[in-house]
């Protein structure tokens, strides 16, 4: 842990320093160029520096597409600011492009007049051909509208690494840090956090550690020494609530939340999973923390993953499986089994672009219907969602709270944007976290497998306990005894009871909160990872005097009790979703109100401006009609 770093002293002298509220930078290059690492380092550094940060990693599904190809471009965007940030920015103020393919696929997102740093050495005829460039964009005038800085990164990096013992390709692999060093200088970022990371990561390989450190410093000092750049930029620390902070990604937060829930319950955490993008990092994270009585089980397939979770829950563990949409498709039957056997399990779906294999590394919200309806029979489960990377921590705990209190499967929806995106997180005091209370029948308690408490939950009697031996399974159960039962009235009653149990969860969740006036012309209603973009767009419109408010659903089944009341106080409701309007259909049907659907299916989050212009369109339409 460190205390907040001081701004790197701006070089004394004549270099002007421009102060800005927020800056968006994107690194892009080959998927083997270390762009994700460079971006992550700058994110952590900026957070430690005291800025608010928001990130958008964007990488291809192929691990190493052919070098220099358009398909192989990997990018990492981060926004850092002296103000509260909820999005990684619609457009980038500075673009670092390590080769022609990266430049070509990313230049459209650079603001006019923006800073463009290119690795000039990579603009060979061969690389230009791979990027399908007929002319060299560095020379053909197409980049005239930007501040273009042509840096021979490869040559300078090789020079910087020359006395470290690393040569050739090994030395070339440090070029991401050379570029990062240059950007650190340009934006007044301290080098210490990254130098510390290099020391920790490569301590056992002194040559690699030394080369990376020299590359970073080389880039930094190049910026400082050369008179190439007309100015530097300064983004002051943000005013942030006191506390101890770290950056956290959605997948890390999900993993830690699950672990914290089990810790609170005094239970073993069982995580049964099969590797799948973009959920695998949850498995990786939990596998590191076995000391917390965490059992990670990498199953042979998605079905074994979820059935092992059902078995572990039956045996008394806090059991959870994590996957993405294609995995949920395979797990559907076993989730139905958990509905029928009324066992507390959690299913995390880190949504990605579909259908089928779809866009494995891109984000989408199109598995909502799958979560709500994707099983045979009347098969209700609780469905909740996380709004920001850090919110994944709270919602993971909440998932287990509901699962154990109501003896039901709970599906937690996150997505690729939340999973890989990061933000500063005020580290909670473990004592302040919600308590997960577990109740197993005790010797002497009256017991029937399907007797119900006031929440309609059945008792969780676990194998190993004398006196409560019982059998459960996927066949319909007689209410109370739990014996196999084909009686028509019993089935009718059980179907309705399972639904009523999920509905009852609404009494234990917070009301839907409105940001802004409680009534007005327009409510923008969202769920999941669109939170940041919606909140930012609505605030901007409110600042322009528009009568617009926002609300965000974290609980989808059941919905918060006041949802209908909230919606009916607005003339119109707009719902942005990264699907074709799945929640819109539900809201319309449930509350018999019209809803305007704003949809985007590009594998990337909404831009703030897209939501803003829709709000403006609706409000001005409302005025003229």
């Amino acid at each position: 842990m460190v205390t907040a770093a001081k701004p790197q002293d701006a070089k004394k002298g004549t270099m002007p320093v421009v102060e800005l509220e927020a800056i968006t930078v994107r690194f892009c290059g080959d998927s083997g160029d270390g762009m994700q690492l460079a971006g992550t380092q700058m994110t952590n550094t900026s957070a430690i520096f005291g800025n608010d940060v928001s990130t958008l990693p964007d990488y291809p599904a192929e691990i190493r597409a052919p070098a220099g190809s358009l398909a192989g471009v990997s990018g990492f965007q981060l926004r850092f600011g002296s103000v509260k940030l909820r999005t990684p920015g619609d457009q980038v103020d500075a673009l670092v492009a390590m080769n022609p393919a990266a430049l070509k696929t990313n230049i459209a997102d650079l603001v006019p007049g923006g800073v463009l740093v290119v690795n000039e050495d990579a603009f060979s005829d061969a690389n230009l051909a791979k990027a399908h460039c007929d002319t060299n964009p560095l020379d053909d005038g197409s980049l005239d509208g930007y501040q273009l800085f042509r840096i021979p990164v490869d040559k300078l990096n090789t020079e910087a690494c020359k006395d470290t013992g690393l040569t050739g390709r090994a030395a070339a692999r440090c070029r991401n840090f050379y570029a990062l060093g240059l950007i650190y200088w340009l934006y007044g970022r301290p080098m210490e956090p990254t130098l510390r990371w290099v020391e920790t990561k490569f301590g056992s390989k002194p040559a690699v550690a030394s080369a990376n450190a020299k590359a970073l410093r080389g880039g930094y000092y190049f910026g400082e020494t050369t008179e190439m750049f007309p100015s530097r930029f300064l983004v002051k620390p943000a005013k942030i609530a006191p506390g101890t902070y770290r950056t956290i990604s959605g997948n890390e937060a999900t993993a830690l939340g699950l672990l914290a829930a089990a810790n609170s319950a005094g239970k073993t955490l069982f995580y049964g999973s099969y590797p799948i993008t973009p959920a695998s990092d949850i498995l990786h994270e939990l596998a590191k923390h076995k000391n917390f009585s965490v059992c990670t089980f990498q199953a042979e397939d998605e079905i074994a993953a979820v059935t092992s979770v059902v078995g572990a829950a039956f045996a008394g563990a806090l059991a959870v499986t994590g996957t993405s949409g294609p995995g949920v498709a395979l797990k559907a039957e076993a989730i139905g089994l958990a509905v029928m056997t009324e066992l507390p399990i959690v299913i995390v779906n880190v949504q990605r672009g579909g259908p089928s294999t779809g866009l494995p590394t891109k984000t989408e919200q199109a598995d909502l219907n799958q979560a709500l309806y994707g099983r045979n029979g009347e098969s209700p489960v609780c469905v909740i969602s996380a709004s920001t990377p850090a919110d994944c921590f709270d919602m993971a705990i909440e998932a287990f709270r509901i699962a154990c209190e109501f003896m039901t499967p709970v599906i937690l929806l996150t997505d690729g944007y939340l999973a890989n995106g990061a933000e500063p997180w005020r580290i909670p005091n473990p004592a302040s976290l919600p308590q997960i209370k577990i109740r197993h029948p005790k010797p002497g308690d009256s017991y029937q497998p399907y007797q119900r408490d006031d929440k309609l939950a059945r008792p969780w009697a676990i194998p190993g306990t004398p006196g409560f031996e019982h059998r459960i399974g996927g066949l319909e159960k007689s209410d109370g005894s739990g014996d196999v039962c084909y009686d028509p009235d019993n089935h009718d009653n059980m179907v309705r009871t399972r639904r009523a149990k999920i509905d009852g969860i609404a009494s234990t969740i917070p009301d839907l909160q409105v940001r802004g006036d409680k009534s007005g012309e327009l409510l923008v209603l969202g769920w999941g990872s669109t939170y940041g973009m919606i909140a930012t767009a609505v605030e901007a419109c409110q600042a322009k005097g528009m009568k617009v408010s926002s609300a965000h659903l974290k609980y989808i089944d059941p919905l918060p009790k006041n949802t209908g009341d909230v919606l009916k106080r607005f003339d119109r409701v707009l719902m942005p979703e990264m699907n074709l309007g799945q929640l819109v259909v539900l809201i319309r049907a449930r509350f018999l109100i019209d809803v305007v659907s704003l949809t985007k299916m590009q594998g990337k989050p909404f831009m703030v401006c897209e939501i803003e212009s829709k709000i403006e369109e609706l409000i001005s339409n409302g005025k003229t009609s």
Partner: protein
Amino acid sequence: MSGDSATVQLTAKDYASDQEIRWCPGCGDYAILAQVKKALVGLGAERHNTVFVSGIGCSSRFPYYMNTYGFHSIHGRALGVATGVKIANPDLHVWVVTGDGDALSIGGNHLLHTIRRNVDITVLLFNNRIYGLTKGQYSPTSPLGKKTKSTPQGSVDFPLHPLSVAIGAEATFVARTIDVNVKHLEYVLERAAAHRGTSFVEIYQNCNIFNDRAFEYATSKDQKHDTTLQLEHNRPLVFGKDRDKGIRLNGMTPEVVALGDGITEDDLLFHDERSAEPSLAYLLSRMHHPDFPEPIGVFRCVERSSYENLLWDQVKTAASTDAPDLGTLLQKGDSWVVD
């Protein structure tokens, strides 16, 4: 409450639940149920520490008839559920009851992986070479040419041999027994339950409705001595009513020989259930009627760490070397203080 006491010796009846048994009269499952209860008596199994997990199929109704913990799961997935149960609580004795369709068709993948991990569970595969619950379609163990409702001209599928599959996945305990051979059945069940690791038992089970007498060759009084061969550890492979025939290895190929005329037991293949190398056990699993007597008994019984033990060793070692503290964990990595 009617908790077990460790000092009370239970009888077979004590393991029976109050549920009416719904298998067809004459089904081989009844004999197996009875012998499992007897085996539990012999093992001194505590009801509350015993869990029966099943998939879907006639045999998979088994847990409902046992007064232990039980889970009747979904088709093919009993091994996944059982693995979760065993990892969550390694003190439990976990049995899986499955059939040829459940374990080898829809659940084939889980069988391979459970066996290779060596999760400590006892798998009873009731092999009747037919789909019974769905009323008589051919199964993955039905012989080529089998005429059923779904194969009126005869099956064109080549069958799987369950023990070959299990040995191929390097099962640490592999055995075969027969529903009507009750003494042998009880012996094999007790051996299987005592083994630490995945125990895989194929039980020839007669479906008297849809595939009656499929195993008559191995059960009828006048044939069984010539069509089956009882395996005994460290003993030569001898069979026949007069124990006058044996199995000899000719290179890598087994052959049936008549004892006498210069051939003694010393010339025969000796059974070694503890052989680390599974090849001989595999060779035995390839002996099929009518060319060979089919071995019954324990094919293989070797020691190897079980999955859940290795996993929990890691958990316990981690906890002892790095005391869990949530506050410390949450602060891991670069953190900073805002005043």
